[in-house]
C-alpha cells in the first residue's frame, strides 16, 4: 500500500475543505472497499480523510413522510431500523443479502453507494482494464464473464455494479444528497451511477471533492409490500448473479403501483422502466410479469459466460412479482 496521510475530522465543512484542498485526497468511511482497493494498488490516495466521526449517523423521519438516512449510518443499523423494516422491507432485505455481518457492521450507507465493481479483471493488475487504466482495453470481453453485466454494457467495459442496497434504493426513487465547498446538491439515485460508455473510469455523478451526506427515501406507502430476491452461487456471502428489488400494489387484479430494479446485470443498479411501463394498469398475472421481463431484457448484450443471466433475470423477476401479488391476495 502506498503511504498516505490520515486525518479524522468531526465537522462536515472541515472534511469537505480537507478533501478540496488536496488533489489526491479521498474520504474514508467503513473502509471495507477502499482499504482493500488501496492494498491492491488500485486506489492510491495521498491523503485519507476519515469521515466516520461526522454527525451523519442518524435515520430521521421526513416531515411529509419518507426517511432521511445519514451517510454514515452503518449498513447493519439501517437494515435493523424498525421504520425501514416496516415501510421499506426491500431495503432491509437487500442490505441483509449483501456481504457478511462483520462487513455490514463496518460499511456505511455512503460507502455502499460508492462500492466499486468486483470484476476480476479490474482487480488483476496483470489484466487489461479500461476502468483501472483508461485506453488499456478490456480482458473481460473475451474472458470469464459469469459475473458480468448484460444491460447497458459497452465495448469498453462489461463490469457489473456489486451493491445490493443500491438496487433497492433504485426501486425506491431514493435521492442522494452531496456536499462540497460549492454547497449542497441532490442527485436522484437513478442518475447517480453511470453506464460505462467509452469512459468506464467515471462511475458516478459525484465530483471528486463531493461528500455524500444523506440518502432520502420519498414517502411510498406501497413500498410496505416490497421484496428483494437475490440469486447467487452460494446461499450467503456472495455477490449477486441476478437480483430483483420490487414493490407491487394490485387493485382489482390490476397493477396499481409497481417498482422494479435489477442487480448483477449492469454497471449501475438497473431500474426496469420498460417493464414497469408495461405492467402498470395491466393484469397482475404471471404471464404479464414474464412479458414485462422479456421487454426489459430484450436489449441484453450477452457473452457465452453470462448468456444464462437473461433467463435467470426473467425467472427472478417473475417469481418476485408473483410472490408479491400472492402476498397481496392473502393479506
Amino acid at each position, binding site marked *: *500500500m502506498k*503511504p*498516505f*496521510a*490520515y486525518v*479524522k475530522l468531526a465537522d462536515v465543512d472541515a472534511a469537505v475543505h480537507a478533501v478540496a484542498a488536496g488533489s489526491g485526497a479521498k474520504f*474514508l468511511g467503513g*473502509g*471495507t472497499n477502499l*482499504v*482493500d482497493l488501496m*492494498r491492491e494498488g488500485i486506489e492510491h490516495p495521498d491523503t*485519507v480523510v*476519515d469521515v*466516520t466521526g461526522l454527525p451523519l449517523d442518524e435515520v430521521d423521519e421526513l416531515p411529509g413522510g419518507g426517511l432521511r438516512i445519514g451517510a454514515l449510518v452503518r449498513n*447493519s443499523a439501517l*437494515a*435493523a431500523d424498525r421504520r425501514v*423494516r416496516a415501510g421499506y*422491507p426491500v431495503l*432491509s*432485505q437487500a442490505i*441483509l*443479502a449483501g*456481504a*457478511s*455481518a*462483520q*462487513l455490514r*457492521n*463496518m460499511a456505511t450507507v455512503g460507502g455502499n453507494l460508492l462500492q466499486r465493481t468486483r470484476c476480476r479483471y479490474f482487480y488483476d493488475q496483470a489484466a487489461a482494464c479500461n476502468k483501472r487504466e483508461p485506453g488499456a482495453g478490456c480482458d473481460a470481453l473475451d474472458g470469464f464473464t459469469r459475473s458480468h453485466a448484460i444491460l447497458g454494457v459497452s465495448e469498453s467495459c462489461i463490469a457489473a455494479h456489486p451493491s445490493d442496497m443500491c438496487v433497492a434504493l433504485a426501486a425506491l426513487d431514493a435521492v442522494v444528497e452531496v456536499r462540497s465547498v460549492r454547497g449542497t446538491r441532490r442527485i436522484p439515485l437513478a442518475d447517480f451511477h453511470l453506464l460505462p460508455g467509452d469512459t468506464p473510469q467515471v462511475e458516478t455523478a459525484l465530483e471528486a471533492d463531493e461528500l455524500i451526506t444523506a440518502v432520502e427515501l420519498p414517502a411510498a406507502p406501497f413500498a410496505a409490500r416490497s421484496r428483494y430476491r437475490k440469486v447467487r452461487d452460494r*446461499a*450467503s*456471502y456472495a455477490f449477486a448473479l441476478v437480483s430483483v428489488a420490487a414493490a407491487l400494489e394490485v387493485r382489482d387484479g390490476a397493477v396499481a403501483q409497481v417498482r422494479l430494479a435489477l442487480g448483477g446485470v449492469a454497471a449501475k443498479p438497473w431500474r426496469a422502466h420498460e417493464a414497469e411501463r408495461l405492467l402498470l394498469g395491466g393484469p397482475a398475472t404471471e404471464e404479464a410479469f414474464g412479458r414485462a421481463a422479456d421487454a426489459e431484457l430484450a436489449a441484453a448484450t450477452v457473452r457465452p459466460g453470462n448468456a444464462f443471466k437473461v433467463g435467470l433475470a426473467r425467472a427472478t423477476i417473475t417469481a418476485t412479482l408473483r410472490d408479491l401479488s400472492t402476498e397481496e391476495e392473502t393479506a
Partner: protein
Amino acid sequence: MTEIRIRVNGVAEALDVEPRVSLLDALRDHLGLTGPKKGCDQGACGACTVLADGVRINACLALAVQYADTEITTIEGIAKDGNTHPLQDAFVRHDGFQCGYCTSGQICSAVAMLREHAAGMPSAVTEPDDPGELDETEIRERMSGNLCRCGAYNGIVDAIKDVAAQGAS
C-alpha cells in the same frame, strides 16, 4: 507515525503506527496477539474477526488509526477470570474445528452474533413477523462471514446452538 490509544482485552495500550497498518497487523505484530488470524487479508474469510466496542468486524479491513479510543476484544480476551467462555467449551465439546485456524474468528464472531440476535437484529433469513428463534438456518446465515476450509460447519453450528439454548451469551 501516529500515536493512538486503544484498549485491548481490558488493557490500555499506546501504539505508534503508520496509517497503513491494519488493526489486524497492529494486534498481531505490535501487540503479539496472534489469536486473530490473517487468512485472506481482504475481508473474505472472517479469520481476523474481533470485537470493536462489542461489535464484530474484520480487523484486516480496518486501519488501526480508525479504531483509536475503542475497546477491542480478541479471542485472548474472551475468557473471563480464567474461565473459558461457554462458546469455547462448546466448540471443544462439539468438535467445532479441525485445524483450528478459523476458530478464534468463529468464536469472536459467535459471541457478537448471539448479542446481535438478542438485541433483535434481523438476518437475511428472518421472517418479518418472526421473533427469530436461533435455529440452524439462522445460525448458518448469521455466521456466513466466517469460512472454515476444513468444513467443520456442522460442529460449529451445534456448538453455537448449544450455547444459544443455554441462553449463556
